[in-house]
């Protein structure tokens, strides 16, 4: 019983972390309908950038994550522009090739990381990594607490950005009805490009969290395809509060299965849940489309 309670507590913390790594996808795929299969690859790439800064210049991983955020923003702008010019603008058949494009990009990133950093696991050093808090019998790693705090802040900030600011509302307007936005005299493509930039920029801190929570290796993006898409689809495409709830459900489910059945089943949980959600309730928990 104690073990199960442990699992739930750790699961909630882990879940908030999953929300942080998924929230970018919630914008790019959930709101903008971009089939962004390369999102987890971008995430792992950000983690390696954080590793590089931490390893070479001894910068705190979270600070490093903030440092690369502007670069990621620009990268996101460029990536969307390329995607728009080559696929979205060309129409119908383009969706198929758009998916293939992002899948190809994900593999290219993975191989480039292998060629640069090798296939070994990499981790960062910081004062809060390796310590733990104790509550009675319960032992909570401090790195998870840090990830939880930062992840919650990041998720809430992005949710506020989308609901309170002018640009955030414009992004949601494009998601709701692109044609209407055009009729209001705004340029939907520029709004979407900006949104994609924001969705990619968030990966700076998310990538830092990824490498704080556990060591990363180049093929980690494959596991996170399951986690991020599971969270975003379960949430209901584009729902920010849904993202947080879905991520916590996933986190708790993973830790419970891990405790009861062992680590060898871990990779399948998110994917199995994703399949389940797609089969039973494809519109998600708090879906914007019926």
């Amino acid at each position, binding site marked *: 019983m104690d073990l199960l309670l442990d699992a739930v507590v750790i699961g909630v913390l882990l879940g908030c972390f999953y929300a942080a790594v998924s929230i970018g996808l919630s914008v790019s795929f959930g709101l903008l309908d971009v089939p962004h299969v390369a999102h987890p690859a971008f995430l792992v790439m950000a983690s390696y950038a954080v590793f590089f800064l931490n390893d070479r210049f001894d910068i705190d991983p979270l600070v490093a994550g903030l440092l690369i955020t502007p670069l990621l923003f620009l990268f996101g702008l460029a990536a969307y522009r390329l995607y728009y010019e080559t696929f979205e603008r060309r129409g119908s058949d383009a969706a198929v090739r758009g998916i293939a494009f992002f899948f190809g990009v994900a593999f290219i990133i993975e191989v480039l990381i292998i060629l640069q950093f090798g296939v070994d696991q990499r981790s960062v050093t910081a004062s809060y990594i390796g310590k733990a808090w104790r509550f009675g019998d319960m032992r909570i790693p401090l790195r998870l607490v840090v990830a939880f705090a930062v992840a919650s802040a990041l998720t809430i900030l992005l949710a506020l950005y989308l609901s309170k600011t002018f640009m955030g509302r414009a992004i949601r307007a494009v998601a709701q009805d692109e044609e209407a936005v055009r009729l209001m005299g705004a340029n939907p493509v520029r709004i979407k490009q900006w949104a994609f930039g924001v969705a990619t920029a968030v990966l700076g801190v998310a990538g830092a969290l990824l490498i704080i929570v556990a060591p990363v290796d180049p093929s980690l993006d494959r596991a996170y395809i*399951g986690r991020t898409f599971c969270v975003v689809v379960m949430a209901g495409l584009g729902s920010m509060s849904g993202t947080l709830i879905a991520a916590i459900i996933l986190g708790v489910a993973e830790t419970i299965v891990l405790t009861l059945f062992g680590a060898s089943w871990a990779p399948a949980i998110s994917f199995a849940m994703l399949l389940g959600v797609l089969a039973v309730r494809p519109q998600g928990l708090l879906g914007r489309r019926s």
Partner: protein
Amino acid sequence: MKRSIIFWIGAVAFLVAVLLMTQIIGNEYPFFAGYVILQFIVLAVAWSILGGYAGYVNFGTSAFFGVGVYTAVLLVQATGAPLAVQIAVAAMVGALLGLGVGLLTLRMQGIFFSIATIALTIVIETSVTNWRYLGGAAGIQLARPPVTPPFHSYVQMLFFVQALLVVLAVAIARYIQNSWIGRGLQALRDDELAAECTGVPTLRLKLLACVISGALMCAAGAPGAMYLQYADPASAFNLNYSVSVLAMSLIGGTAHWVGPVIGAILLGVTQQLLAVTISSEVNVLVLGIMLVLFVIAAPQGLIGLFRKLTHGRAEGKA
């Protein structure tokens, strides 16, 4: 009719040539490398039946391939069934799996289907990893039975068997392309709603494509167990199969069955050369870059480029 005769003469000539090769060439390496290329031709042609004609991007090639490998492993472990039985059962399992995946996901639009197929790959891989009887994560060693005459070695026999599968896959793809099934699939790829409204049974056609494609992929995987004499989940279900096959089909062009064949030969040979001379990482890099370049610059693949050159007009449909 005349074209069919030419096609079948070509197919028989190909098989005879392969059979002669196995009798004349003593060195095993050409067969060892050639087998992989033939296997990719089957996979790419099978992928195009759903991915090309119907426009549903399947990332689960590795799931079907791996299930094929492990169906063979299971049969060998349990009953010591011969190769032909392994392939036949694998094809049946693949068809069932295709039906299941199709029922589960084909009501969804493009991207969800693609994501679901990746999910399926990982779920099946994890299940096999946790299945002790099949060797678990560490993999399993298999002993080849004695070779059947007229072949001198088992690899040569597998090479011939895979060549048979190539002919089978191409014949099926060609039949689909020229029949009402292919026309229906193309109609639903262009506009699913319009196709449905004009009376095309879209869901049934997609299911059929998914079943046939799945059966062929599993059949292509089945001899793989005996080819390597070893199977482990991480390599049998490796997503690299998915990206390779996707790249081969799209680079060749999916509007005609010749496209994936050309793509598979071209990339398969390149991969064999790169893997021998440089490294398997560079191999995947080249593959990924070519995939992205073709998807951006030559959406119709090599077939499209060729048609542009010969007709001067880009608008060519099979």
